[in-house]
């Protein structure tokens, strides 16, 4: 295989046209068994549209200040990649995530805020990694420089394919180094579930931290790679459907993929680690810290969206005066307000991030509580709003129905609800059905859950953050007061 390209110079502030041009680089992308052109295949049109719109926001007068940052030496970068140093920086990073979530209705989790956060996290441990593996710092700093200046979209691949645990290690085809050369390594194997890889500019391939103790050194490999690198194939899932019109803001589908590496050469200039498990563990720890901030901001946007939706639906259905309908939107509002307060507090109380780079992160316990609370209550809010919609969500006239003279007149007569306009009600219900029950919405819900490991993992993480010390001290004092010194043994 040919040597993968190291990094290339990119234009100063990127445009949608530039992004589209970059896709014509010969990447090997497959859909339904066929090699396809990403720029023209309909599966990717919604995601490319979103990326183009958001790139335009970076350059717009109103978005530029929030989305970009210019350093004293005059270099402009995506703000999402700049490591935050204080509470104000954290809040702005959060506002960037909220802006992206609002643009995509919370249905895309892999945009610049996520990859930028990961890069900022990497940059903050660059010196620490250098101490363990000389050369890694330069790789990180160079990648950060190129991606942040070029507004490149970088997606992370860390999930391994589902392997039977009964298989011997050599049959598992875990991504691993199969050859070492003077100028780099050759890797072979697969990564499952890399979202957005087909239209990414860069891919960051990592090893999951908790698997490291069970792996041999050859499987501990992490690197940056261009999607067009020879030997790399990107296999996509089919589209999620939805009857979207051209330009429909609800047409959002970040395509999930498998990455298959068939003897892909990774030059040292792109290699983060190859056999150094301590570097792999450090990088993983840094990444995990940064991923949650944008995640929570996105969930908050979805809660707010459901709050608004429940209010409008109850008006359109004429049920706003029922106590149970009022409870639905009151609960949605309460949950959104609570998560918003927790996030605001976490951002206002920064703590040092992993690594010695001087960056900060939101206060972890409040952020974890916000994340867990949002994940716990989002499904319940969605179900309540769904029940509020009831018949309207199941049986909603299509545009063709309303346009048909014979069918449309019956809907005109019977289906206006309190607004008296069936097309308004149909449009609202159609948006609600898309946000609550579409395949895109279901996929996003699954990935929200899967992405955090579900309740079990979240609770485990939370239990490590919670400190029962104060309560234990109070109980001990109480025991001592009641029983005297005789209970010391018990209370200890």
């Amino acid at each position: 295989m040919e040597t993968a390209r190291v990094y290339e110079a990119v234009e100063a502030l990127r445009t949608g046209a530039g992004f589209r041009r970059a896709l014509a680089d010969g990447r090997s992308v497959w859909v339904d068994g066929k090699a396809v052109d990403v720029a023209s295949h309909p599966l990717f049109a919604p995601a490319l549209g979103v990326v183009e719109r958001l790139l335009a926001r970076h350059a717009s007068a109103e978005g530029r200040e929030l989305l970009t940052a210019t350093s004293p030496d005059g270099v402009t970068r995506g703000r999402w990649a700049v490591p935050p140093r204080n509470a104000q920086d954290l809040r702005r990073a959060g506002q960037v995530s909220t802006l992206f979530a609002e643009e995509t209705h919370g249905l895309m989790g892999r945009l610049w805020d996520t990859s930028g956060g990961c890069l900022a996290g990497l940059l903050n441990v660059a010196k620490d990694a250098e101490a363990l593996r000389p050369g890694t710092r330069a790789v990180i700093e160079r990648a950060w420089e190129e991606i942040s200046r070029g507004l490149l979209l970088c997606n992370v691949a860390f999930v391994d394919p589902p392997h039977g645990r009964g298989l011997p290690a050599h049959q598992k085809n875990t991504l691993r180094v199969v050859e070492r050369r003077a100028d780099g390594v050759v890797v072979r194997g697969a990564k499952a579930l890399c979202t957005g890889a087909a239209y990414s500019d860069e891919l960051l391939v990592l090893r999951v931290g908790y698997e490291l103790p069970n792996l041999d050194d050859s499987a501990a490999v992490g690197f940056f790679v261009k999607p067009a690198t020879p030997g790399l194939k990107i296999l996509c899932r089919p589209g999620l459907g939805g009857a979207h019109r051209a330009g429909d803001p609800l047409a959002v589908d970040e395509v999930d993929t498998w990455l298959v590496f068939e003897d892909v050469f990774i030059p040292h200039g792109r290699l983060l680690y190859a056999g150094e498990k301590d570097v792999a563990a450090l990088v993983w720890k840094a990444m995990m810290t940064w991923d949650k901030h944008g995640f929570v901001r996105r969930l908050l946007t979805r809660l707010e969206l459901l709050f608004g939706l429940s209010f409008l639906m109850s008006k359109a259905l004429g049920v706003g005066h029922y106590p149970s309908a009022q409870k639905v939107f009151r609960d949605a509002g309460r949950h959104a307000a609570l998560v918003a307060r927790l996030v605001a507090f976490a951002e206002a109380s920064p703590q040092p991030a992993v690594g010695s780079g001087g960056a900060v992160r939101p206060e972890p316990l409040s952020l974890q509580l916000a994340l867990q609370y949002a994940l716990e209550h989002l499904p319940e809010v969605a179900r309540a709003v769904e029940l509020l919609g009831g018949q309207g969500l199941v049986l909603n006239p299509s545009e063709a129905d309303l346009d048909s003279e014979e069918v449309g007149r019956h809907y005109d007569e019977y289906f206006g609800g309190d607004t008296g306009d069936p097309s308004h009600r149909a449009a609202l219900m159609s948006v609600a059905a898309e946000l609550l029950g579409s395949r895109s919405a279901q996929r996003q819900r699954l990935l929200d859950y899967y992405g955090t490991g579900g309740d079990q993992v979240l609770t485990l993480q939370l239990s490590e953050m919670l400190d029962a010390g104060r309560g234990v001290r109070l109980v001990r004092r109480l025991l001592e007061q009641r029983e005297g010194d005789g209970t010391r043994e018990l209370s200890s």
Partner: protein
Amino acid sequence: MTALAWKRVEPLRAHPRTAEDFRRAQRDGRRVWLGGSRLASPLDSPVLAPVVDTLGALLALHASREHADLLMDRDDAGQPCAAWSRVPRTAEELQRQGRISTLFAHETLGMMGRLWDASGSFVNALHNVRTDAAKYRPEAAAVLEELHTRCGRELLLVALAAIEPPPVDGLPQGLRIVDRGPDGIVVSGTKAISTGAPYCDELLLLKNVFGRDALPPEETVGVVLKPSTPGLSLFCREGLARGPRSELGRYDEVDALVVLDRVVVPWERVLYAGEPDAARVLLEAVVACDKHAMARRLVAKLELLWGLGEAMTHLTGSRAVPAVAELLAGLGKHHALMSTLVEAAESRPEPAPGDGGGVLPERKTLHLALSYALEHYPSILDTLRLLGGQSLVVRPSPEDLAAPEVAALYARHLKGSTLELVPRARLWALADELTGSELAGRQRLMDSYAVGGRHILERELAHMLDPSAGVARLEARVGAPLRPPAPAEPPEENP
């Protein structure tokens, strides 16, 4: 535009109705619309035709050696009839009805809630209150008798339409009598949602009078109509299946808006026309009977989902992980608990509304079962999504596996079990549809909506639960009455 009167009683059939009979019945000129266009018949729609085939397959079970004993019986006149049309009078008969629901649920993966078991239970419930309704409208008894006999002997599928459309400017939009004559009434208006109406044999349209002040007589109307009745139109929602790849498309029971445009209904098809007490009796009977088949279907569905969890973890090899084993045990527990509650409810029958001698499963236990299922169903889906994880999102499509280059990559990298790639990919596709498709979402919504959601179920349950024993013990202990005055009834809501 006049509705057809009941046709003459046909000679007895040597065999139960066949799939072909059912298909033929679809070409009766019914006015079914989908996507703004009128269909020549449901058989000409890619959305409806597969569902008609599924129903045909279920009809064939009635004549099969394996299931005829369960599904067929004889009526009081000694004529062959469907077992689901026999009004249950004992625990054993209730259990038999339950087994029929379970059989239908197994055959349709629990995705269809409006099959012969449900429609038979509506008709049975109405039959059980026919003499009670006759006190307020004497002619209703004969209409119900005819409907019951015919459905049982001819294996007719009845679709229920009881939900009202939302009001416009505060004014109700439901059915209303616009004219009366010596031969019958003329009805206009709409019913908001009727599942299975496009392919049913009879439509049961009941004005919902719950939670309302007394309706004007012209808005109190209940009728039984053929779908092909002139002036009656059925507007279907779009299909929810994912194209030809869908594993569940054949179970997409299509919901429809029912519109009556000056439909003449002969008296022998009118259940009530201005008699609010007759309406109340009939509606209460239908609402009371609705939960048995649903509970059985949910048990079958929980069993299927439990099996799905087991199969998925077998494929991913994750069963040995303690947290996964715990999640699987949770799935099994939900099924076992629900199943036990339903069996308990069937074994302790209570009199059904009416004086026809019919019984229903014990209401409190059945309510507890449904409330439990609706409470835990979302978390069961979350568990399955977590167990399936990445494979529910990215997995090879049939086209991927048919392409040699891509199939070779999957074969090399997607190892993990001895099962071949094609059935494995099919299982993941089925799992994805059962847990995350619009079709599954609709079914979950309808399960909840049909009973008014958990808050209505729990409010109903609150009326069934009695804390007086505990209160009496406390009263005895403190020597003073502790019971608060009975609270006023909360205002009813139309769920």
